């Protein structure tokens, strides 16, 4: 066929007709998908007026598409996020590359990658959770649309809550018997100080070590549930960071030296700042004990850096190193779950340490990370914003009346 030469009006018309039909079918198909899909879907133009509103959206927002199309989205679409149910407007996220300008750090963290929202309609705030996804479609410089979808994730959220509650209850129930054993054991030792034989003392020490381990695991689980349920509390006070670092290294040094490792103390100082001492020590202890655990020869070097607005602490080891793939998993919850509770010469671990450290640092508005190459050792670091004044008032009362306590083992 000599199609390229056939330009008759009839032929063009026929072609146009069939293309048009195709287009029409395509539109109809898209329209059907859009309306039938279980997801709530709506879209706004560059002046945040509604352009698309599917039937799931009609059901959830309890308003007809014919009513809302062409109207300002924020008048009809009421979404809330976070623990405090803050209103989320389309203006806050549509056509934005980064959320940091619209939200405070805390809010941005709450939204995180999760974008978990609740919906308010004429019946009130729905007892449902949705995951919000959005995509910006740019046709031209002044012609753009933002398509938003909401998937119902209530079941997921509820399951997650139940799991957290279970962990919380289980670990709480474990805490009481642990305290009973610990306290009575202490009393037993107190009363039999002079009469115990050397061998008996040795066995007793093993009981202590085992209990300490059990206690630590349960505390880790409790911390996790606190973090997930937003019940985590920081207790900041003015602290000599250098002294804290030195005393933490000292408490870990013995084990390292026993393994034949060299321990190098920081050669700089950063001074004092407001920080939760107990949590600071916990994070550093965690990094140090990991370094000792995974290093067979060589040593561990601790450094501190004053970076103006923040301080940074790093722990460098000469261990096996961690592949990039593994590095990504390190700070996730139960990162070592696939290995189970692997036994080390230094005791079992839940693989929760780094996840907890990361969560604590998130509360402190700090950060944690790792640089490592397989065969070249690893450097774990964390940073905390410097603050000469108490950051927030929320824990003031606790801080001012806190009692000096023994540091968490």
């Amino acid at each position, binding site marked *: 066929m000599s199609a390229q030469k056939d330009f008759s009006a009839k032929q063009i018309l026929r072609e146009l007709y069939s293309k048009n039909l195709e287009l029409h079918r395509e539109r109809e198909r898209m329209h059907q998908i859009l309306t039938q899909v279980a997801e709530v879907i709506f879209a706004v133009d560059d002046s945040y007026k509604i352009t698309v509103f599917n039937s799931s959206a009609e059901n959830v927002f309890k308003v007809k598409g014919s009513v809302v199309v062409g109207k300002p989205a924020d008048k009809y679409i009421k979404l809330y996020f976070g623990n405090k149910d803050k209103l989320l407007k389309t203006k806050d996220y549509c056509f934005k590359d980064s959320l940091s300008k619209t939200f405070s750090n805390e809010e941005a963290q709450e939204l995180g990658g999760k974008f978990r929202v609740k919906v308010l309609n004429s019946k009130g705030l729905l007892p449902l959770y949705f995951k919000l996804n959005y995509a910006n479609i740019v046709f031209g410089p002044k012609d753009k649309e933002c398509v938003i979808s909401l998937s119902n994730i209530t079941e997921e959220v509820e399951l997650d809550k139940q799991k957290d509650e279970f962990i919380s209850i289980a670990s*709480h129930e474990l*805490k*009481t018997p*642990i*305290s*009973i054993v*610990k*306290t*009575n054991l*202490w*009393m037993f030792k*107190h009363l039999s100080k002079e009469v115990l034989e050397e061998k008996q003392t040795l066995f007793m020490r093993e009981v202590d070590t085992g209990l300490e381990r059990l*206690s630590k695991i349960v*505390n880790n689980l*409790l911390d996790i549930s*606190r973090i997930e349920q937003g*019940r*985590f*509390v920081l*207790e900041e006070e003015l602290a000599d960071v250098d002294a804290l670092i030195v005393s933490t290294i000292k408490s870990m040094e013995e084990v390292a030296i026993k393994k034949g490792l060299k321990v190098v103390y920081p050669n700089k100082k950063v001074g004092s700042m407001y920080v939760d001492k*107990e949590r600071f020590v916990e994070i550093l202890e965690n990094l140090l004990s990991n370094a000792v655990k995974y290093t067979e020869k060589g040593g561990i070097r601790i450094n501190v850096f004053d970076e103006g607005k923040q301080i940074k602490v790093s722990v460098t080891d000469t261990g096996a190193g961690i592949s990039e793939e593994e590095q990504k998993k390190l700070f996730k919850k139960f990162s070592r779950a696939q290995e189970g509770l692997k036994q080390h010469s230094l005791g079992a671990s839940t693989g929760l340490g780094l996840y907890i450290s990361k969560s604590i640092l998130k509360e402190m508005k700090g950060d944690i990370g790792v640089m490592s190459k397989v065969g070249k050792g690893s450097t774990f670091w964390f940073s905390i914003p410097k603050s000469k004044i108490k950051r927030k008032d*929320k*824990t003031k*009362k*606790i801080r001012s*009346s*806190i*009692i*000096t*306590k*023994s540091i*968490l*083992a």
Partner: protein
Amino acid sequence: MSEEKKYKVLIVEDEEALRNVYTEYLRSEGFEVVEATNGEEAFEKIEQFDFDIMLLDIMLPKVDGLEVLKKVKSNIKLKDKKVLLLTALGRDSVIKEGFELGADGYLIKDQEDPETVKKNILKVLGS
């Protein structure tokens, strides 16, 4: 502890196995100790026993520790009495609540041995 004064401690704790140790140890260290095993009993004891300091478990059967604390700190005659919270949970938002209600400190049960408990009692009492 000071020789001239025998401090009076009211221990409110439902776990017998814990309460016994605290009581026995504190008595052996020269304290006068009265026990209550739940919140209701604590209400009775605070009327009868002129204590200097109360060791108060938060999670109690019947009336919880925070209720007992509220009652003590809102009573003109009792509000200057010292209260140390005992918690199994550790650092938690419930502690914050306790401080807001006027607690003088807290002790985490599985982290503080009886001797540390004693030291903290003396510290709060200012000896």
